[in-house]
């Protein structure tokens, strides 16, 4: 049991990192990675949404969809679940931390359409994970997302003071840095057999 949890952790955070290996959830990865602080905030929000979404979608899938033979409604209902959860996160954040709420801006509601969240839910079902592993996989995938976005935000903060060729200023150099981070993460491939 402990072993499978550890394997889930390592594979979700490092080997199959959602952002830099599976290339899901790139929008907030590029959008909210200007400052480490907002990146951490975004990461925590995504961990929360991914964990909860994994739990709720697992329940919806096994208790409702599978029993009634309505598997084809998977995408629709999952998005419904995610949208509701994101709305909840938005309300909680607005109440608890105005500063973070403003810093995340449009990217907070955009978690709804963050394919990494939908991706983790669907992959949980496809891999036939049980409830515990599903939830943990969701949380760990969120941790992987946070790791990637915080690392990248650190790089971008450094980039601001670096001398960048004029034609690469702004997003081009960010994309190049992102590709290098991605290359670095590819080093984890083959860590687990």
């Amino acid at each position: 049991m402990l072993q499978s949890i550890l394997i889930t952790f390592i594979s979700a955070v490092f080997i199959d990192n959602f952002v830099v290996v599976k290339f899901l959830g790139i929008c907030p990865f590029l959008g909210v990675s200007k400052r480490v602080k907002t990146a951490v905030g975004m990461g925590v929000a995504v961990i929360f949404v991914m964990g909860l979404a994994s739990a709720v979608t697992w329940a919806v899938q096994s208790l409702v969809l599978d029993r009634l033979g309505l598997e084809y409604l998977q995408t629709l209902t999952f998005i419904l679940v995610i949208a509701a959860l994101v709305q909840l996160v938005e309300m909680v954040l607005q109440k608890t931390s105005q500063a973070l709420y403003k810093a995340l801006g449009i990217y907070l509601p955009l978690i709804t359409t963050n394919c990494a969240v939908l991706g983790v839910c669907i992959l949980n079902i496809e891999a036939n994970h049980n409830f515990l592993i599903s939830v943990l996989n969701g949380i760990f995938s969120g941790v992987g997302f946070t790791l990637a976005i915080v690392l990248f935000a650190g790089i971008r903060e450094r980039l601001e003071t670096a001398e960048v060729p004029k034609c690469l200023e702004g997003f081009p150099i960010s994309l190049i840095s992102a590709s290098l981070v991605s290359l670095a993460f590819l080093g984890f491939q083959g860590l687990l057999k």
Partner: protein
Amino acid sequence: MVDILIAVAIVSGLGLLFGVGLSYAAKVFEVEVDERVVQVREALPGANCGACGFTGCDGYAAAVVEGQVETNGCPVGGNNVAQQIAAIMGVEPGKIKRTAARVLCNGRSSVSNEKYDYQGINSCVAASQLFSGHKACSYGCLGHGDCVAACQFDAITITGGIARVIEDRCRACGMCVLACPKGLIELIDKTKKYSVMCKSADKGAVTKSNCQVGCIGCMRCIKVCEHDAIHMDGTLAKIDYDKCTNCSQCSKVCPTMAIRVMDFGE
């Protein structure tokens, strides 16, 4: 048929469940929003053009209520909206000078010379990368319409190879000013009819050889102006709009017709 009904029932049931849950959460996590923000937002035109310096009308409305900015910060809404906002905030409305964008170049293709035949991308920015554009005058309007694309209000047209602003439609949001790679567009008081329609920093003789309607710096307008409103600024005559009285003398003496009556209504 039954299958479909079950599917519909399941999805709407889930939706209802989440809806009820969320409305309960909304009560629990309710945040008090200053109702003046909503009122100010409703008074604004909602173009989200960014002319006020904020990301959109929402940002400006919040800043007004927080007292960071004046109530007359929306050039699109003009005095009318400024008064409404001032009424909501309970302060005196400040006057807005109605400005409109003006493209300060008269060099239509028929009166200006070309350096080369440009066949590239239809964009002023692209054209200006190539030996500062195809016009012989490196300061002139290239007429590919980057400003037209930037204008949300459909107020700019390309006529005779140069951009012209239809002042009745212009809301002075300033997006075209940013879009012009030659820096030819300025926001100028709408009531002032005369402008020096040239930005050439070349010497008079060079300007003259490039374009028939450029300002050659002859200073005749300066001598004739009774209101001390025109002065030299480098190689160009420059009108001080605070002093200009629309008396039209400068326009009459200008040998190249660089100072012209602005009448670009619809």
